[in-house]
């Protein structure tokens, strides 16, 4: 009975982890620029690795292997965000601009807002929804870069 429960938990965790990993990898290929790729892969990678390693901990039981796996989870939790953050800062400091800006550093969003306004004049409701759906994380990063 206990084995069955542990197996079920491991299955769920492994499926969740695999889902996150594959989605992160697809995002790595589909996203347009460095920062969105970072966001796609960094977050989901940590989640997926954590889930899979947690499932392995459940499978290992109370052994030395489980302790090593917990160390691995801790390493993931500490190093992955640090690496992501470092890559972002280095990219900004070298001069890679997010996709929301054009080559001269002007905000490209103004153009899109004009387009949006034109669309809103034509069809009010769905365009307004779409406007609210803009990526907040990307906008925040863009704001920092413009301050610099």
């Amino acid at each position, binding site marked *: 009975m206990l084995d069955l429960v542990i197996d079920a938990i491991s299955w769920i965790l*492994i499926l969740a982890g695999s*889902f996150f990993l594959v989605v992160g990898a697809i995002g790595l290929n589909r996203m347009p620029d460095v920062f969105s790729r970072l966001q796609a892969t960094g977050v989901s990678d940590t989640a997926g690795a954590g889930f899979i390693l947690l499932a392995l901990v459940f499978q*290992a039981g109370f052994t030395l292997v489980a302790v090593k796996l917990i160390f691995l989870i801790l390493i*993931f939790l500490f190093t992955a965000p640090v690496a992501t953050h470092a890559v972002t*800062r280095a990219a900004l400091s070298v001069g890679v601009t997010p996709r929301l800006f054009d080559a001269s550093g002007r905000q490209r969003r103004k153009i899109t807002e004009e387009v949006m306004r034109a669309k809103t004049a034509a069809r009010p409701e769905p365009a307004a929804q779409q406007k609210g759906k803009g990526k907040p994380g990307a906008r925040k990063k863009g704001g920092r870069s413009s301050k610099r």
Partner: protein
Amino acid sequence: MMFAVAAIAVLIALALAVVRVLAGPTVFDRLVAANKIGNAVILLVAIFGFLTGRPEWLDIGILYGLLNIIAVFAVLKFLRYGDLGVTGGEEPTD
């Protein structure tokens, strides 16, 4: 079976990350993808230990994790303080 599923998922992620490493237009794309490849390799090491029934090589996984971040930081430090870092304006002071 469970481990085989996880291993296949990790391999798919690995292949996609390799695509990004080869295609990435900037160095940072390659770096992000290299970091992801390192993570996937660690997971693969862990899963492979369980798959073959001798899960004793997790030390290697820990070593890979540390080396992964060391490699990323080495490249980043070179990029920021080497000859390319000069083009990005002023450096942060911390």
